[in-house]
Every structure is written in C-alpha cells, then in structure tokens.
C-alpha cells in the first residue's frame, strides 16, 4: 500500500479547469439569451454535460483512477439514461 504511487494534480490544472468551467457557464447564459427556441435548452444541457464531464474527470480524479471505477460511474450514467429513454418512450407513444 505504501509504495502505491498517488497522482498529485497540480494547482495549475485545477485553475485551468475552473476557468474553462466558468467560461462554459457564461456561454450557456449567453445562448439562452439569444432566441434559439428549443435549441437553447439543448445547448444549455449539452454545455452542462461538458461541464459535468470536466468535474468528473479532473476534480473527481477519474482521469487518474483505476479503470474499474470509471466503468462503474459510466454504468450508473448509462442506467440513468436508459430510464429517461424508457420513460419518454412511454410518454411519446401514449
């Protein structure tokens, strides 16, 4: 356990990620101000997905974790997506 190397993420990496996250926040506010109709929501959700990907990868260390943890996280998101799709199949074809 002692000799297991522990990846130390630099302050600089975290700062860069924060700046990107803040920029994406402003972009999502910006695109909802322009009249894009339903695309505005899609765009905002897409940007939120990119932001959550960055948080998971860097802040939550997944990039430096063993693959099985990444697989577990991916599995949970896949289950959630499946439940959304099944629910909306029900509502669309009712």
């Amino acid at each position, binding site marked *: 356990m002692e000799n297991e190397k522990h990846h130390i993420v630099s302050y600089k990496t975290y700062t860069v990620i924060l700046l990107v996250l803040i920029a994406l926040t402003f972009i999502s506010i910006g695109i*909802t101000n322009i009249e894009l109709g339903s695309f*505005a929501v899609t765009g905002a*959700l897409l940007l*939120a997905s990119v932001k959550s990907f960055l*948080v998971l990868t860097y802040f*939550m260390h997944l990039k430096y974790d063993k693959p099985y*943890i990444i697989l*577990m*996280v991916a599995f949970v998101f896949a289950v959630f997506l499946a439940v959304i799709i099944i629910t909306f199949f029900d*509502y669309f074809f009712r």
Partner: protein
Amino acid sequence: MSQVIHHDAHYDPEGSKIGMWLFIFTELLLFGGLFIVYAVYRYLNPEAFEMAAEELNVTIGAVNTIILLVSSMTIAMSTTALQKKQKGTTVVLLEITFMLALIFLINKYFEWGIKFEHGIFPGSEYMTSELSQGEILFYGLYFVMTGLHALHIVVGMVIMGVALHRIQKGTVHPERASLLENAGLYWHLVDLIWIFLFPLFYLIS
C-alpha cells in the same frame, strides 16, 4: 489531549474510495429521479414552465454557480496541498471552501426570501388561487430540488468541519488522506448536481 496516531491501524484508501463512490451513485439516482419528474412535467406543461422560470433571478443563480465552481476547485486544491505536505495551505483552502458554501446558503436564503415575500411557497394562497397547475408544479420542483440540494450543502459543510478538525489534530495527514479526499468527492457531487439545476430552472425562460 491529542490522540496517539496508530500507524498500524487498518487503513484502506481504495476501499474507502469505492464506498464513497457507491454512496455517490445512490445520490445521483436520487436526484436523477427528480430530474426525470421535472422532464416529464416540463414536457406536459412547456408554456407554464417557461413562464414560471422567468420569475427566477438569473444573476443570483449565476453567482451561486460560480461560487460552487470555485469552492470545488479550492477543496480539490486542499487535497493537493495535503499530498504536498503543506498543512497550513490545506487548512486555509478548506476554510475558504467552507466560507464559500456559507455564502451560497446566504444567497439561497435571500433568493427564497424574495419568493416568500411574493407569496410563492408551497401551498401558499397566491399559488393555489392565481397560478396554473404547471406553474405550481414548477415551483414545487424548484423548492424541493434546490432545497434538497441546499441540505446537501449543509451536510457537506459538516463533513468539511470534521475534516478540518481531523487535519488540525493530525489524524488526517498525507499518508492517511482518505477523509479529505472523500469530503472532496462529496463536495464535487454537490457541484455536479447544481451544474444541471442551474440551466434547468434559471435558464429556460
């Protein structure tokens, strides 16, 4: 006064990390369920949701988003500081995170306060008599989801308080950093949920 540090005591950082992630999965599915409820009601009441969302203050939502993003960075940095054996920096960064969480809650207090003043709160006379079914659903979800999220902020602050205490006491140190790492993971989860709450409630009008 201070406890003796048992270096031979059982310590399994990987096991703690898996445990924390399993807990995070249950949290994700808890909020996930609420997001599905939101999606279905929004699909059934598109106009009412957009009208009701106009009442929400985008500026206060954006400020809180940035506060949470910054606090996520400071708690992640505090783990880096601990690993680099910079105890003072670790403590300061954790304290900054704690303060940012408090500021988030204060903003939330004023935001909810303004809603209450306008007679918008679950079961209020104004809501039940003046607003449509869709708008009532929007505000119901708004209070439940941001309220449950705020509860997570409070819990996160408690965990940070425990971590701070343990770091100062010396039972959380570079070779035994799991508590701080897991506190960080929990805090990032709180951030992750807000990343979706913000566009879905504040940016849809």
